[in-house]
């Protein structure tokens, strides 16, 4: 069994929100004890609503945001602290794709120069071959040769995102963390970019962490999916199973809230109440205020993530553990 490419165990991230100039800072636990294992070439989808901490987790896995406790290991070695030379050298092997491509690109430089920038930074290939490599990358992501000299604002949303992905692949990374990479795109363009991402991933055996609130896209691109709620993973399973037969009540509600074109969904489980505020964390299980099946134990003690058979895990008192058969 090859060793995991990326391993993180019970990461915790606490922000200090300061109320006013001299107001006392209130600590907010954006990520509250998350453990993840990712094999080379595997794609892990992370879904959750706003405030679930999925973006923060993505940044922690890349070592951008420091973790208050817990640690991240890349290829077995602990992650170097940000700002150090090893951390920068490590960037060549792991890359980040943002949601808004226009913000991630420098307005003043043509996309060809920006795609080739990682090559200059890490001096991967001799200078004379870099132009050819850029061209190869551009055609890999479906950009035409004549678009090399254009500025970011002269391209469409989809083309810009392709340029960002080409730049991310320039240094042949082993890991790609994408935070809502296609949410800003129209459906038809979204499909183009998703297909391209999967092809490139398979050709170069890149492991990928795909963060999104859109369950439909994650279902089609991820091997495994982790559902997050208020800084914790509440359920994790393979993407074939998790949305077909969700175990955790929150996953169930999430799946039932996804409208399927052409079919009016009757009797859906619609969650009442508002998305949780990380600053005011409910007692016990964080989901109990909105959970239709909440009982006393849910209100008092927080369930931990337990294995519930055939490689699935869930964090809920009502979901029976590994031993008992899977109840309704």
């Amino acid at each position, binding site marked *: 069994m090859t060793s995991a490419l990326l391993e993180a165990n019970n990461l915790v991230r606490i922000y200090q929100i300061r109320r006013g100039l001299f107001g006392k800072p209130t600590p907010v636990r954006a990520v509250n004890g998350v453990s993840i294992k990712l094999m080379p070439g595997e794609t892990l989808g992370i879904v959750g*609503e*706003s405030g679930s901490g999925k973006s923060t987790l993505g940044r922690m896995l890349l070592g951008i945001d420091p973790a208050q406790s817990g640690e991240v290991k890349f290829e077995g070695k602990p992650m170097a602290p940000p700002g150090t030379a090893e951390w920068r050298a490590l960037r060549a092997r792991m890359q980040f794709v943002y949601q808004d491509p226009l913000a991630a690109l420098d307005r003043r430089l043509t996309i060809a120069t920006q795609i080739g920038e990682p090559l200059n930074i890490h001096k991967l290939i001799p200078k004379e071959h870099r132009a050819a490599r850029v061209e190869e990358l551009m055609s890999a992501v479906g950009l035409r040769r004549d678009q090399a000299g254009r500025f970011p604002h002269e391209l*469409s949303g*989809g*083309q810009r995102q392709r340029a960002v992905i080409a730049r991310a692949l320039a240094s042949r990374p082993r890991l790609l963390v994408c935070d809502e990479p296609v949410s800003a795109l*129209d*459906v*038809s*363009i*979204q*499909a*183009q970019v*998703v*297909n391209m991402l*999967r092809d490139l991933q398979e050709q170069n055996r890149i492991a990928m962490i795909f963060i999104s*609130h859109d*369950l*439909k*896209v994650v*279902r*089609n691109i991820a091997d495994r999916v982790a559902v997050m709620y208020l800084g914790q993973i509440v359920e994790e399973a393979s*993407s*074939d199973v998790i*949305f*077909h037969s969700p175990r955790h009540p929150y996953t169930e*509600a*999430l*799946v*039932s*809230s*996804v*409208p*399927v*074109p*052409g*079919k*009016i*969904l009757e009797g*859906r489980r*619609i*969650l*009442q109440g*508002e*998305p949780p505020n990380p600053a005011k964390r409910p007692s016990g299980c964080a989901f109990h205020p909105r959970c239709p099946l909440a009982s006393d134990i849910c209100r008092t003690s927080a369930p931990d993530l337990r294995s519930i058979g055939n490689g699935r895990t869930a964090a809920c008192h009502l979901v029976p553990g590994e031993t008992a058969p899977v109840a309704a």
Partner: protein
Amino acid sequence: MIPNLVELRSLRVAFDGVQVLHGIDLDVGRGESVGLVGESGCGKSVTWLAALGLLPGKASVTGSVRIEGREICGGSRHVLEEVRGGRIAMIFQDPSSSLNPVIRIGRQITEALAIHRRLHGEAAKTEALRLMDMVGIPDARRRFDLYPHEFSGGQCQRLMIAMALAGQPDLLIADEPTTALDATIQAQILDLLVQLRAETGMAMVFISHDLGAVSQVCERVCAMYAGRIVEQGRMEQLFAEPRHPYTRGLFDAIPRIDGPRQRLIPITGTVPNPKNLPAGCAFSPRCGRAVEACRSDLPNLEPIHDGRRLACHRPVPVVSAPPVRTRTLEAV
């Protein structure tokens, strides 16, 4: 046939000489709910902003917009103001920035009540509180005097719906109301819209690029591309067998949550720039079924045998549509 509530006839809009809307013909019956789907830039929001005269000054709007036979397109400002909120109300996409940040939400609701229902003072407040309860704002009494930034995105959207209902309109235009919201909150708002329509019997136009959301609330659907309606028909008809290649492409491109994990089927190319639209049918460069005729003359929207209206020279055949995709749809 009871007369239509609203009839748009060859509605055209141009910004600084660039034609964005190329003649929209659309009817909305009393109490009916119509979906307007299409990708960004196809002009679906511009259609209704133009109809209500909400476009900025430099936009030139031509064509006819009739409410129960009364023409309002190009009408005097007084006429339009009386229609807006009173006969046709509109809610928008980004709830947090569509409410005035420096005015209490209570006053923003009673303001509409004062204009359209002549309610003032205590009577207006009680009616506003009733509306807030109706759209599901928890303990409205205490939150009547709060400001918009003290509400979540979902609650702001509910407040906007309450404001729209204040004038007891006959038609509610919902312009991408759920796009900026989380999935669970989106489901709540869609459910609320369906329930409100049942209670008040008002007609609704639901504008969105999310076909799933549209199919939850609409009886009839129009697909738009590059400033024109390309296909229009009953929801079940259109979703079961889309005949226009673009509508079919839209359905195939949507990733499925049920069923096996498979590659998506994108529509190649990108949306044309309104400044230089291709000759003939605007979709021809991206259309797999395009023939010579498609690239030369523009198909116009004609009714076809099953009551649908279609603008295509070579629509997707009905019977022989073999791809697995449609079959799994029926199976679900």
